[in-house]
């Protein structure tokens, strides 16, 4: 037990550094996912049919293949055809585009569950279609999508764990180095597991709090 505490003290600083990188990647990727995912979601519902098809293909590609392989294609494959990205950039881009695919679907589902009468009423007071989407439909859809989005945010922390395989010094990356340095893989990875569990727990609590704060009476999963 004493040895374990000893080990714990030795590895914690490095693991903490890794945690910071993990958080960075998670936040940036989530944000990228929102920025790309929102227009895709809207395009899937309100865009012309040809656009819906193209976007559908994008979604099928990103949702139908493993994140890890997408990462390898971006980091190892793209340089082959002239686009070279750094490790972190590749991580941000891949996780971001991947998350965008899922966020777009949550948004699409939410947009479609906003009742049609809302659009009708908005047009009746003279709003154009896009004004109505922006000022009336989207604000409601975003709130409806919040639970699904929260899940995505929490899950993102777990998804970042594969980037160590392209040598990004995140939590798992540090763990790998420390595991071989101290010849104690099981203990190190168990400690790392605890780190992730705590991160996930905190993220979950924060998001539940946000959900509660932004709740509007009457705007739940079954909006009228």
């Amino acid at each position, binding site marked *: 037990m004493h040895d374990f505490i000893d080990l714990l003290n030795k590895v914690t600083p490095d693991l903490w550094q890794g945690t910071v990188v993990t958080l960075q990647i998670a936040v940036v990727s989530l944000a990228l996912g929102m920025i790309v995912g929102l227009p895709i979601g809207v395009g899937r519902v309100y865009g012309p049919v040809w656009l819906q098809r193209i976007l559908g293909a994008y979604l099928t590609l990103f949702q139908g293949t493993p994140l890890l392989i997408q990462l390898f294609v971006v980091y190892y494959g793209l340089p082959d055809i002239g686009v070279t990205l750094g490790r972190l950039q590749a991580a941000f881009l891949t996780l971001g585009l991947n998350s965008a695919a899922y966020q777009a679907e949550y948004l699409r589902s939410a947009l479609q569950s906003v009742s049609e009468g*809302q659009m009708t009423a908005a047009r*009746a007071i003279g*709003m154009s279609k896009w004004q109505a989407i922006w000022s009336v439909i989207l604000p*409601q859809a975003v*709130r409806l999508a919040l639970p699904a989005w929260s899940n995505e945010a929490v899950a993102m922390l777990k998804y970042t764990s594969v980037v160590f395989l392209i040598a990004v010094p995140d939590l798992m990356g540090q763990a790998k180095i420390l595991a071989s340095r101290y010849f104690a893989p099981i203990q190190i990875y168990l400690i790392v597991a605890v780190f992730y569990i705590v991160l996930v727990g905190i993220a979950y609590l924060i998001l539940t709090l946000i959900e509660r704060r932004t709740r509007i009476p*009457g705007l739940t999963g079954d*909006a009228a």
Partner: protein
Amino acid sequence: MTSPILRIEDVHKSYGSLQVLKGVSLTVQPREVVVLVGPSGSGKSTLLRCINLLNPPTKGRIWLEDQEITAPGVNQDRVRQSIGMVFQEFNLFTHLTALGNVMIGLVKVRKMRKHEAHDLAMFELERVGLADRAHYYPAQLSGGQKQRVAIARALGMDPHIMLFDEPTSALDPELTGEVLAVMQKLAAEGMTMIVVSHEMGFARQVANRVVFMEDGVVVEEGTPQQMFEQPVHERTRAFLRNIMQ
């Protein structure tokens, strides 16, 4: 004879092979209150949605004041600013308070400044008797209150004509009174109104003209007294008999 505020000329509306309106013509004078009655499926709601171009007619022409709004190239969004509409299912914006619902059109469409919009919105809410509920969300309002907010929202756009599509049909009986009272007040203030409704009491008291539609055409029209007491057509008589029971 003043010029009519609304002129509907031989309007047809089909959805694919289904013909809903089969040649409707109607003229409405300023400050007139026209009540449209008829069995369901007669095309009354469809006609309203043709007037404000939500579902433009397949054939026929409509003039609002002196502008032909069915002409190609007309800015339909613009036209809809001058025509107010109140729906059976209210369609209040669920993510906004009552005040927000009235303000959003003022800010986004009429491009007013926030504080001007706020004052005008409060004025309209006052007009329908709901100033004290300004900060409530739709889910926290009763049906009658929701509908009154919907009326305030439409009024905020300063419409020249108001269309009501069965405004009380989705309300519990004890709540219809408050909505009809607001509509009566509007009429007294001189608003031109076209109302689709089954509320015969309202028609008798407030309407200047009652129009009976069936099967996509206007069968008969006249003053409430003429229509209710001496209808000419048998179909009108049959309908009124059913309704009165």
